[in-house]
């Protein structure tokens, strides 16, 4: 038990947060283990509350409250500060540090505005619609009854009999089917034109032209 007045004066200054830093640690250590210091700590704060509010709390309720608090705190565990500090620092650093981390894809600046997958899908669908429209429109424009294409269903025998011509050059290799080539030649007038009988250059590029073209 340390009843030196200067210790209690330091405690009074600590109550006000006005104790010099070099005295704080020592006073807190003393306060942590000395019952008289703890009693004075409680009384100093009680005094301040009475002065500010004009009312006091009941001492036995205060004591009971502290007992319940101590019991509740004893069941709690607190995470060490270092772990959380590191975690928080890592979380804060992550958004600015993408470029330094391999394997992490930096999102494009306009990703929030344009969904490129949707654009690709729509483009493919549009191409199919245009091709289909050309085929139908050309048939209707010519005023002829729609001709049913004579589909030659290749049998195993026919397929086996047909030689396959493989293009061998720098362009991507395509395995040619003579039956397909014959079909294309028969319907050559439908290729390379739009619904308005105007050249559609990009579609002509979409077909592989054989020697017959």
């Amino acid at each position, binding site marked *: 038990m340390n009843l030196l007045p200067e210790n209690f*004066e330091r405690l009074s200054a600590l109550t006000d947060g*006005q*104790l010099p830093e070099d005295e704080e640690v020592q006073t807190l250590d003393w306060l942590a283990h000395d019952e008289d210091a703890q009693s004075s700590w409680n009384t100093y704060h009680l005094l301040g*509350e009475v002065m500010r*509010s004009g009312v006091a709390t009941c*001492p036995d309720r205060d004591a009971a409250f502290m007992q319940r*608090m101590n019991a509740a705190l004893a069941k709690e565990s607190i995470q060490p500060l270092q772990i*959380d500090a590191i975690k928080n620092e890592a979380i804060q650093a992550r958004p600015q540090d993408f470029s330094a981390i391999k394997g992490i894809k930096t999102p494009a600046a306009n990703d929030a505005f344009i969904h490129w997958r949707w654009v690709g899908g729509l483009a493919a669908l549009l191409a199919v619609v245009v091709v289909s429209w050309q085929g139908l429109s050309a048939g209707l424009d010519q005023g002829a009854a729609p001709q049913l294409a004579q589909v030659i269903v290749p049998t195993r025998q026919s397929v086996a009999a047909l030689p396959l011509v493989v293009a061998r050059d720098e362009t991507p290799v395509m395995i040619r089917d003579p039956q397909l080539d014959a079909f294309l030649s028969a319907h050559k007038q439908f290729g390379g034109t739009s619904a308005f009988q105007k050249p559609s250059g990009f579609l002509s590029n979409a077909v592989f032209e054989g020697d017959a073209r």
Partner: protein
Amino acid sequence: MTEQPFPTEPPKDSDSDALLVQRAVAGDQHAYGLLVVKYQRRIQRLIGRMVRDVDLVEDIAQETFIRAYRALHQFRGDAQFYTWLYRIAINTAKKFLGDLQRDRTVFGTDFKLDSEKDETYSPRNEPTTLETPESVLAAKEIAAAVNAALAALPEDLRQALTLREIEGLNYEEIADMMNCPIGTVRSRIFRAREAVSAKVKPMLEKQTDKRW
């Protein structure tokens, strides 16, 4: 429910609070207990403006301190500890009251919202429920003893203590106002506290046979 305004009582002692928080985060629960002792009455008074049942006030206050303890590692120290604690208390009280609203049997007696708008509201004028007459009397006796001891203080001691506890000035500001050295301010405040404590401590120890 409208939000409570920020606290107007500035306990300008954030340095010691920060030190206690550091110790508490490092595992010193006793350090946190010192913070509880320091702020429990203030927090209970705050909650008491929203809740009349004294048992419920204490429950909410306890929950406030438990929540603050669990979140202590998140306290950055860029604001005062009491400000941070104040926010937790308000949110905790709101949650409790929200849960109570579902139980209509306690709606009318356990809380009232008028205190926020009633400028004449004072905890002094509002009796709390479920307090025993003995505890009410004990609290009144302690308050009376404090006021009597303050009135009996020499003027310089009373002035120094009043400037610190009610006006919230730091020692340097008090020294400027009283035209004396900071060390004298520190000594006067200490002597004032000791003089009042000498009258109050016996009453505190008499009321309870247990140490706080």
